[in-house]
């Protein structure tokens, strides 16, 4: 994802001279091409994310389109107040790009995990949150975030994630993308869990359960139309994210559901548990630990489907 981001950044910067890249002392070599062409619009801001974030706001106040880039926890929670006040309160077109989101850098330990960033940033007025599902979505997210013209957070994985889309999908902020059709269970995946979610739907298929998959790349604003459709059509809606079940995508869907219940489908939220991971191990290990695997997702979805089928559901509200 980060390579796709760097390539796309060079492309958009050549067309838009307002683009400025602020890096928090990261991306060694990654931005060489960009720096070669746009050296006057690149700043290594050092390990000083609060200053970097406020500087981005100052640049945006003068008509530029700054993009801040560093490892997710440092670009989100470390400088949360600067994001709240300087970017969101002023409603400025600054794009915050977090790399190594969720458990991407699991081996580096909880200092480098980010399983709470969506929760924090989702609460900020004016903020748009985009979690691309593969490299196609990364490329399209950057362009869309620039066009939308307000604060945006793009939550990236690392590199060499499986590519899900066969070509450029139809990408609109706030609109989910159908990735696999299905009839019984609907998996709403956000961010880098998309390939795993597709595998989970295949696993469900093997077990006789037809499961659709959508890439819900935008966590805020929610695709409410899609939620109405999914909760009225399927028996179980599963949210999948490499983020805590507290405050993330699943939480926002649960909030929506609380406001619009009862609906036909049951909700099943899958994410990281309310705990730090104290053990060493890479992303695969960490995902396994938290049940963020095709089998883990499929089994949890099936248990929820069983509950749904045995307990039934309240009648949908009259419209």
């Amino acid at each position, binding site marked *: 994802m980060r390579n796709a981001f760097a390539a796309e950044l060079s492309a958009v910067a050549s067309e838009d001279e307002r683009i*400025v890249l602020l890096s928090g002392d990261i991306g060694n070599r990654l931005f060489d091409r960009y720096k070669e062409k746009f050296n*006057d*619009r690149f*700043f290594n*801001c*050092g390990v*000083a994310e*609060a*200053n970097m*974030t*406020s*500087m*981005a*706001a*100052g*640049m*945006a*106040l*003068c*008509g*530029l389109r*700054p993009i801040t880039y560093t490892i997710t926890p440092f670009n989100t929670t470390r400088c949360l*107040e*600067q994001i709240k*006040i*300087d970017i969101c*309160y*002023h*409603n400025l077109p600054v794009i915050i790009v977090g790399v190594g989101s969720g458990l991407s850098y699991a081996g580096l330990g909880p200092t480098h995990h980010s399983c709470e960033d969506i929760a924090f940033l989702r609460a900020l007025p004016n903020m748009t949150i985009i979690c691309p599902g593969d490299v196609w979505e990364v490329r399209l997210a950057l362009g869309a975030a620039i066009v939308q013209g307000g604060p945006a957070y793009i939550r990236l994985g690392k590199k060499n994630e499986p590519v899900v889309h066969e070509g450029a999908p139809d990408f609109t902020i706030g609109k989910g993308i159908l990735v696999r059709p299905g009839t019984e269970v609907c998996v709403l995946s956000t961010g880098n869990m998309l390939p795993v979610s597709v595998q989970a739907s295949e696993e469900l298929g093997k077990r006789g359960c037809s499961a659709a998959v959508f890439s819900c790349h935008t966590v805020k604003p929610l695709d409410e139309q899609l939620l109405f459709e999914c909760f009225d059509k399927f028996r179980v809606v599963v949210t999948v994210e490499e983020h805590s079940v507290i405050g993330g995508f699943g939480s926002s869907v649960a909030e929506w559901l609380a406001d619009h219940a009862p609906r036909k489908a049951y909700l099943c939220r899958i994410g990281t548990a309310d705990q730090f991971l104290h053990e060493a191990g890479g992303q695969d290990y960490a995902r396994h630990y938290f049940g963020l695997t095709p089998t883990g997702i499929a089994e949890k979805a099936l248990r929820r489907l069983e509950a749904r089928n045995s307990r039934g559901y309240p009648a949908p509200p009259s419209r």
Partner: protein
Amino acid sequence: MEINFTELAAIARSIRGKLVEMSHQARAPHLGSSLSCVDILVAAYWTALRIDPQKPYDPDRDRFILSKGHAASALFATLAYRGFFPVELLYSYAQPGSCLAEHPGPGCAPGVEAATGSLGHGLSMGIGMALAGRIQGRSYRVFALVSDGECNEGSVWEAAMFAPARCLDNLVAIIDFNGWQATGRSCEVMALKPFREKWESFGWHAHEVDGHDLKQLVAMLQQVPDGRGKPIAIVAHTIKGKGVSFMEDDNNWHYRIPTAEEVNAARRELGLR
């Protein structure tokens, strides 16, 4: 153009009188903090800043950021007296529904460059503006007014390290060093001293001035850039509550609201009716 310092001093006295009134009417705190920076604001807005109150959004204008946002009343009164908006608007300060709140909001009034109030943000925003000017080929300067207490914030020192690394000679940090923060002497709460030397050692061209001496302030603020290729730090030694004898250097006036009698006494001292 010759500067009439008697006139400048009279403007500063009028603004101080207005601030005491505003605090009383709005029952809004931070009067001492507002009074300490009035001469800095007057020197900047009347003699140094390249601004046109009729064109508050001119992309080539100098930027002034009140990083110590709790002195909002001082900024608002300065902007009003300088012609950015009608002085009558000051009567709405901190009233329900007013655009002039106890801290400056984003775009709340013409001339307000940034929303501040949480300390330690303004200087960094100013660096962003200064870099933007460089990228866009504009020759404007950026001035950020920081308080001594504000320098407790680590982000101030992130900014202090970054600006010299980029040789931002179009950037000025003015520190309103009134010696107090909310609940104590600023040099006792944190080890601020040696203060000017800190800025100097971080790579700034750092000066110390009497923050109530308009001549010293004007001389300093009118020489930006100063040809040294560094950002400029001006440590302005001030008195909290300056201009009103019974408020001067008394930190109770960080939060205290003046009574009607105190407003009258203050205005008399300032030579105002």
